[in-house]
Every structure is written in structure tokens, then in C-alpha cells.
């Protein structure tokens, strides 16, 4: 990978092996993309999701959206700035 060394966790290697066994091959570009994603995320295998719990935990949020109780950001920068301001207010509160 462009002369860089990549570490692959045992779990990630097992995942890659399973993909090959299932006949799912990738182009070189895709291999590099996924390898970088895995490398950057220091991926461990995600625990199995309990979908019943997931849907239950999302239910209130869906209901609020339906009632129009939400805050919307026009883009990622606005979202980022909003939450940074939250931390700034915490900092200001501590200083006061």
C-alpha cells in the first residue's frame, strides 16, 4: 500500500478471508479503500446488534421528528460548530 505498512487485526483478517471464500473479490482500488478504512478505524469485530433493542432505542427519536421537535443543521460544518459551542459554553461556565 504505497510503501506503508498496514497492521490487520485477527478479526479483520478473518473477515477478509470469509469474503474471499464467498467469492467476493474487490478491485485494487476497493481493496486499498477498505484496507485504509479498516486500518484507520483499528477495526475490531462489531458485536452482534440486537435489532429489537436498536429499534426501541430509536423510537422516541422518530416520534420527536414526527412531531417536529428537532434541530437541523444545513451541513456538517454547522453541526460541528454547534457542538463545539456546547463545549465552549461548558468552558465559560467553569470559568465564571
Amino acid at each position, binding site marked *: 500500500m504505497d510503501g506503508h505498512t498496514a497492521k490487520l487485526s485477527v478479526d479483520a483478517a478473518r473477515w477478509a478471508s470469509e469474503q474471499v471464500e464467498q467469492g467476493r473479490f474487490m478491485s485494487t482500488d476497493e481493496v486499498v479503500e477498505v484496507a485504509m478504512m479498516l486500518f484507520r478505524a483499528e477495526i475490531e469485530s462489531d458485536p452482534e446488534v440486537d*435489532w429489537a433493542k*436498536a429499534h426501541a432505542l430509536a423510537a422516541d427519536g422518530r416520534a420527536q421528528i414526527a412531531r417536529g421537535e428537532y434541530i437541523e443543521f444545513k451541513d456538517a460544518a454547522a453541526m460541528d460548530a454547534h457542538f463545539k459551542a456546547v463545549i465552549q459554553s461548558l468552558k465559560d461556565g467553569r470559568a465564571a
Partner: protein
Amino acid sequence: MARFRYPTETEAIVNGILASTFNEFGELAALRYQALISAAAQDLAERLAALLRYGLAKRRDGLIVYHIRHGKGRVPRAIGRVGKPRHVILAELRGDCMVVLNVVPDWMLTTEASAEQAHSTARRIQRQDDEQA
């Protein structure tokens, strides 16, 4: 360009996560965690198809589950890295809007069997860290 929508309560939850991180670990840690949550949400908005394809995000009946640790690569190195992020984003895509329905601790979503497996892995990693220390 994607929009982002947070239910009022979910925004309060994120604010609470940032506040507790701020109070417990300080401003820089809070900024790191904030950057990671934002990066993960942005990840979902910008490359959902790839994340689903590679199994980093999961989706069932429209609900997307994404562990924020997968957003680490998007956080600028200068901000620093969160060691062990422990939150998962629950979201859904509505047109060009990524709706962040909830942000929850990862243990709340796991089945009992996989929770035991995760604990086992955590213990193994801790042992390795102890041996290296």
C-alpha cells in the same frame, strides 16, 4: 451536501455526553469526543453505501447502526484520538438528510452472547496491555 437532523432529546443526549466528558476528562477530551461523533455522522451521510457494503455500518428496516469508532479516520490528527469510544449512532437517511435518532452506549445494543464475547476480547486486550506495561 447532506443536512443533519437531531431530535431535541438526542441533541440533549449528545450535549450530556460532551458535558460528562468535559467534567471527567477535561476540555480537550470533550473536543476529541465531539469531533469523533460529528465525524461519524458525517461518515454516514457521505459514504453510507461503502460503509454498509463493508459491514462497518449495519441497516435493517431503514435503521442504521454505526459505531463512532469507525469515524476515527476522519478526525484530524491534530485534534487527537479517542482511545476507546463507546457510543453507537442510530440513524436513518431521509432524502439528503441524515437523521441521528439516538446516540447510545454500545453495550445497550448487544445481544447477551456477543456482549460476553466483547467482554472476553476486552479482558484479552487488557491482559496484553498489562503485559506490555
